């Protein structure tokens, strides 16, 4: 049974998508219950998977019983289990949120299509986390991307052009990745990750492998919107429906970072990256630049949704930097941050969505009104801001702590400084909102408190509590992640 969890975690949302597609038109009334059942079961599956890897450390599932390298395998270690948990957790929050948010944005006739794609996207994300095959990664990228494009384009006519650009960029990134996989296949004749990791060291010095490494990393960078490939992301996300954003913004880029870790850390191995290629300085420069540039844009923009997008750009820099630092602690920090940041981003996006729907805009002044009119949202916002800033004991603090420590140990002081600058900016960003409220001219016609609908309030509260809990349970996660790290880390 235990190995089935891996399949279930992926399969449940997939079949939910199919059922949605067929039942949705016939009986729209049942739709939200089907979705709720699907997402609940999926969360259970991911918890099952998590508890299994807690004891067994490793779960493999072979489709049709074919063993690799011939068959297709799902391979779940602790890190992927954490990712699955993250995807389903965030998806559950986003789903509840969308129940209320979606009717505000799309006519009911489109809901069946929307939810079909929605669950397809979720299953794509999960599959990315558990797959053990480099070619499957490509296919799943496209599964995610295709359903994602469609979901984003539902944002209306403003969303068309950015989404079109995203289609081009996303396909380009995926194609680069695919060519890279081709080079790997030429040299090794296998596509299975574990098998590749065994074979690759014998051909480390081949030029094909170098080419493969470059193409794969560049392709992934485009997909995850690492600076300077980030151009497509802010535009397309800000125009999308909020309910799509809740799913895409936290997970879309994060899961690519996870794939990067898989490919760099497990397939190519850290040793190849640091000692043979010596690309670490370049990668660290990129990561540092991503943080700095993202931070600068954050200061420059005045709309919450846009600000969130550039926070994501700089957070991607954190994680990529953490992976390429190649220290044990920094990689743990990066993995931890993937999950922490997913939770933070989903909360921020939900806050932005609530503010947009209830107060009619997401400029700084509107957001500031939130402190007076939407108390629950405001509390969630404060908590997530503390985490973005990195105030202990929020999760943002610990990942930053580990990353900075790693940067010190390996001598990349620039990266440490960039992290600190990002924190400082986050402080001022938050206080810009807070000041907007605190010094607001009070007039007598002060509007009253708005009670958020339950579909908004529940996910917000759960996400905020989850953030605090995730931070407080840090020592558990530290030990949990540590056992699944790639070899060769100091």
């Amino acid at each position: 049974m235990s190995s089935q969890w891996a399949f279930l975690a992926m399969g449940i949302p997939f079949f939910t998508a199919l059922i949605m597609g067929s039942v949705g038109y016939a009986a729209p009334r049942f739709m939200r219950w089907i979705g709720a059942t699907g997402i609940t079961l999926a969360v259970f599956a991911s918890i099952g998977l998590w508890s299994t890897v807690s004891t067994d450390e490793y779960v493999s599932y072979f489709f049709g019983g074919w063993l690799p390298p011939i068959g297709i395998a799902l391979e779940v270690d602790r890190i992927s289990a954490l990712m699955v948990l993250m995807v389903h957790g965030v998806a559950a929050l986003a789903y509840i949120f969308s129940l209320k948010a979606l009717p505000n944005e799309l006519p009911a006739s489109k809901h069946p299509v929307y939810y079909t794609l929605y669950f397809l996207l979720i299953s794509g994300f999960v599959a990315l986390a558990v797959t053990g095959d480099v070619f499957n990664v490509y296919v799943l990228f496209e599964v995610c991307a295709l359903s994602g494009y469609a979901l984003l384009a539902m944002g209306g006519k403003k969303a068309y052009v950015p989404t079109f650009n995203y289609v081009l960029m996303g396909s380009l990134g995926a194609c680069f990745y695919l060519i890279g996989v081709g080079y790997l296949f030429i040299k090794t004749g296998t596509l299975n990750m574990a098998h590749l990791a065994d074979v690759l060291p014998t051909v480390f010095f081949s030029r094909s492998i170098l080419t493969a490494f470059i193409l794969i990393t560049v392709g992934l960078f485009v997909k995850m919107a690492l600076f300077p490939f980030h151009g497509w992301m802010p535009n397309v996300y800000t125009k999308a429906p909020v309910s799509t954003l809740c799913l895409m913004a936290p997970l879309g880029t994060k899961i690519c970072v996870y794939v990067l870790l898989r490919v760099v850390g497990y397939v190519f191995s850290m040793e190849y990256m640091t000692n043979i290629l010596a690309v670490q300085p370049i990668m660290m420069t990129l990561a540092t630049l991503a943080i700095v540039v993202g931070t600068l844009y954050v200061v420059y923009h005045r709309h919450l949704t846009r600000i969130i997008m550039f926070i994501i750009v700089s957070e991607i820099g954190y994680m990529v930097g953490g992976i390429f630092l190649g220290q044990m602690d920094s990689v743990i920090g990066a993995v931890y941050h993937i999950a922490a940041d997913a939770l933070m981003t989903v909360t921020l996006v939900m806050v932005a969505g609530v503010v947009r729907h209830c107060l009619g805009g997401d400029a700084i002044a509107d957001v500031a009104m939130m402190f007076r009119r939407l108390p629950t949202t405001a509390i969630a916002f404060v908590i997530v801001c503390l985490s973005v800033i990195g105030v202990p004991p929020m999760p943002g603090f610990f990942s930053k702590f580990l990353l900075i420590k790693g940067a010190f140990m390996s001598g990349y002081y620039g990266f440490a400084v960039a992290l600190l600058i990002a924190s400082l900016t986050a402080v001022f960003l938050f206080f810009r909102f807070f000041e907007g409220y605190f010094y607001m001219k009070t007039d007598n016609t002060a509007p009253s408190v708005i009670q958020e609908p339950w579909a908004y309030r529940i996910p917000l509260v759960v996400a905020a509590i989850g953030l605090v809990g995730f931070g407080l349970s840090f020592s558990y996660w530290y030990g949990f992640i540590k056992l699944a790290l790639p070899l060769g880390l100091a």
Partner: protein
Amino acid sequence: MIGAMGIYVTRSKPNGPAISSVVAAIALVASVIHLMAYGARDVVDVVSFFPGISVSFFCDPLSLIFAMVASSLWGITVLYSVGYLNGAHEKNQPRFFACVAIALGATMGVAFSANLLTLYIFYEMLSLSTYALVGHHQNDEARVGARKYLIYLFGGSIGLALPAMIAVYALTGTLSFSYAGILPEVTPFPVLVVLMIMFLYGFAKAGLMPFHAWLPGAMVAPTPVSSLLHAVAVVKVGVFSIVRVITGIFGYDLINQVNLSQVIVYIAAFTVIVASLMALYQDSLKRRLAFSTIGQLAYIIMGVGLATPMAFVGGVLHIVMHAFGKITLFFCAGAIYVATKKKYVSQLDGIGRQMPWTMGAFFIGSLSVIGLPPTGGFISKWFMVNGALEAGFPVIFTVYLISSFLNACYFLPIVYRAFFKNPATMDDVAERPLLCVVPPVITAAMSVVLFVGAPFIIRLIQGIYYG
């Protein structure tokens, strides 16, 4: 002991207005006394994150002294705030009291922190809670002051103290305070100097120049805030953090070995002189007090940084003495403002005759800050000056003397004005309200009592140094 800890965290954060604050203050003082009686040096881990990183508390004489000062003055301040806020017709009182209570809770947290991380957490909590207090008036002036406050404090703590803390962790693998010091002796000298400077400026609440500018800016806050937070809790937390870092992270052995004192002492000495000179030119009473505070804080750091038994005792003692002295002065400034709306030194002619109790307290407070008997300030300064000689820093000895002279120069004229000059106009001004007058008198009396009671505290502190 854990039970007593619980009291801090829960009781020190009431949401209600003044009364519950008073109750909580009394409970807090009682539990600190309780701790004093049964205090053990146990470390209590609340949450452990990973090896060497946890939220944990412990209790030693240093934390007890600090907690005692902060909690007892809190009680008095609450009384005073009631008088002041009603007298000055301030708005949003519940928020005010809640924030003060949270700030005090954070201060207690700092006092009992057993490692740098815990200290840092509560340090940040304090910054956040006092932000709302500094900006209490919610006008443009408050906005500027509060923004400056934030920039300096967070800039320091995130930009300097946090990386320094992480560097310490990377070097040693732990952050727990230990009087033996935790940094290995082989650490290269430049690294030590850089770390030390990062800590000194990183805890910007201590107001070392040039990271001092937030303090005068924060004087836009209502006076009870200025007095409690900016004479006692906030700035002393900064100093206390630095003391903890010097004694608990670096350790006196290491500091003496590589002669790190020089770095600390000269930075502080510069601040002492410059701040005292600047205080001379301030006409706003509260700003003058603020600059005086900056100078006095640097005294403490200087004393602790000298790294001799005498100077250490003097430095820690000065935390206590200066707290009582300075809070008296702030209370008086506030009382004057409530009664007369006067904010400037030049307006104070003859006010001593109308408000004899207030100005009498002011006189005693300034004696204590200058360091003249029969007030507590004399004793702490005596120890520090002797410590400077003992450590072989004649320059610092001179600095102490010069700055004491300067202190006298900027305080005594106020007293002179108040009592001996004839006022320009004879307003009908009287002492009022009662709750604004009694607290400064109490604290002034405490300054005198501490002169007598100092040996008790000195014994406690010596216990730290030798224990």
